[in-house]
């Protein structure tokens, strides 16, 4: 297949990362157009960060776009994966909300065990000082954008145990909380209501 003389060179532009420009310049300097020479140049150590950067740029650009942003917003609020963990009493109601009667999966809420795949941390129970740093670690392991729901009174403000020596009086002392759900423990409906409120918050959010 013959190729037009200038075709492969058109792609080189200023948007290229630094590491590539040297090879690109070589091409521009009238070297014989060896096919796949740029693939030779893609050494691993340069490729991975460059690709990541490009991807991040792309996403950021699309995030700014007026056309794309509503789509991502819609996707983000309709597919909230909470972290699958149980702290205390509220965890039982949390589980009940995923049971047959309430079925939180109707809203696209599917608990995932790995924090890397979650967008939402539902703090469903008493947070003690012993578990506090683990909670923060988990929160930091979740990729952006992420949200936190303080479910129940213990997560909101320590609940009946707030005077105790071992209890964090409110998870908002540790991580930023988006929605508080009162209740001790809240009914599964109340938890779903909290998630719907979070969806409303995401919809109204201005970036």
């Amino acid at each position, binding site marked *: 297949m013959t190729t037009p003389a200038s075709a492969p060179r058109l792609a080189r532009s200023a948007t290229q990362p630094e590491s590539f420009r040297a090879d690109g310049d070589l091409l521009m300097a009238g070297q014989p157009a060896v096919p796949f020479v740029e693939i030779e140049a893609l050494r691993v150590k340069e490729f991975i960060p460059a690709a990541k950067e490009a991807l991040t740029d792309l996403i950021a650009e699309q995030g700014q776009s007026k056309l794309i942003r509503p789509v991502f917003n819609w996707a983000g609020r309709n597919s909230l994966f909470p972290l699958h963990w149980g702290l205390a009493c509220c965890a039982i109601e949390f589980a009940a909300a995923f049971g047959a009667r309430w079925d939180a999966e109707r809203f696209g809420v599917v608990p995932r065990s790995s924090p890397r795949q979650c967008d939402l941390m539902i703090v469903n129970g008493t947070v003690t000082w012993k578990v506090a740093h683990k909670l923060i670690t988990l929160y930091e392991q979740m990729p952006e954008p992420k949200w936190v729901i303080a479910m129940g009174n213990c997560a*909101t403000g320590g*609940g009946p145990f*707030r005077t105790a020596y071992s209890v964090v009086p409110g998870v908002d002392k540790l991580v930023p909380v988006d929605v508080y759900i*009162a209740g*001790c423990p809240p009914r599964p409906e109340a938890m*779903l209501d909290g998630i719907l409120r979070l969806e409303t918050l995401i919809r109204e959010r201005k970036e």
Partner: protein
Amino acid sequence: MSDVTATEKPDENPILWVARPMATAARQFAKSLFRPSTIVYPYERLEDPKFRDRLDVASGKPFGVGQVWDNYRGVHALNIATCISCNLCAFSCPDVCIDMVTTAGSDPKHPKKCPQIDYGKCSYCGFCSDACPEGCLTMTTRYELSVSKRSDMIYPPERLFEVFRSKLPMNPIRLARPENEDAILLDPPLCIGCNACARDCPTQCITMLDVPKPEAKPGEKLPKRIWKEPVVNDSDCVRCGTCISVCPKECLFWGTRK
């Protein structure tokens, strides 16, 4: 072993080993194909009349069985008009989430104090509504309380009054107030007749009656006091103990009236 009560009957047929659970799942699938037992929450609610007092558990749809909501303990409703500011709810709260605050619009000279509830601390135990002598603080069936600001969880009396006016079903079971022998007693020598108890009594059941001023014996100085003593009307008293706590001389105490 003869002791063993929980045993299984082993099955010899290996085909059934996988077939039986799969058949059970298939039966469930057929049952829930058209009407699973899910309640489509924001559109259907369990406290709807169509789910209330439902008894059709045998029909294969187990939702809504025995949904009796009258008893449910949710957000409080406060009838400000009948509240007597007796403090009993705040006293009985195990989580110390009730504050008595001045109601908006009350007379600044005689501020009316009504409970303000922090739902971030409340554990919905119902002790406060049990303790309320006038039945003005009750619990309703409202349970949705998600907010994005922590301070929105604090319900001042006016907001509790709004809940009252929204005519939600309220907890009908009221505790019978047991007959009890406890009463407010007075240690007369200590009393100075200051009227503090009668002034602060929420039910106005304390009246200050005159006591005869004793004749001063020679060499003895009469105490400097107002010659009145409180008398408690036991049938009206709600045993809130306000009088004991306001008494400057600690002359009132709990006791049994013979």
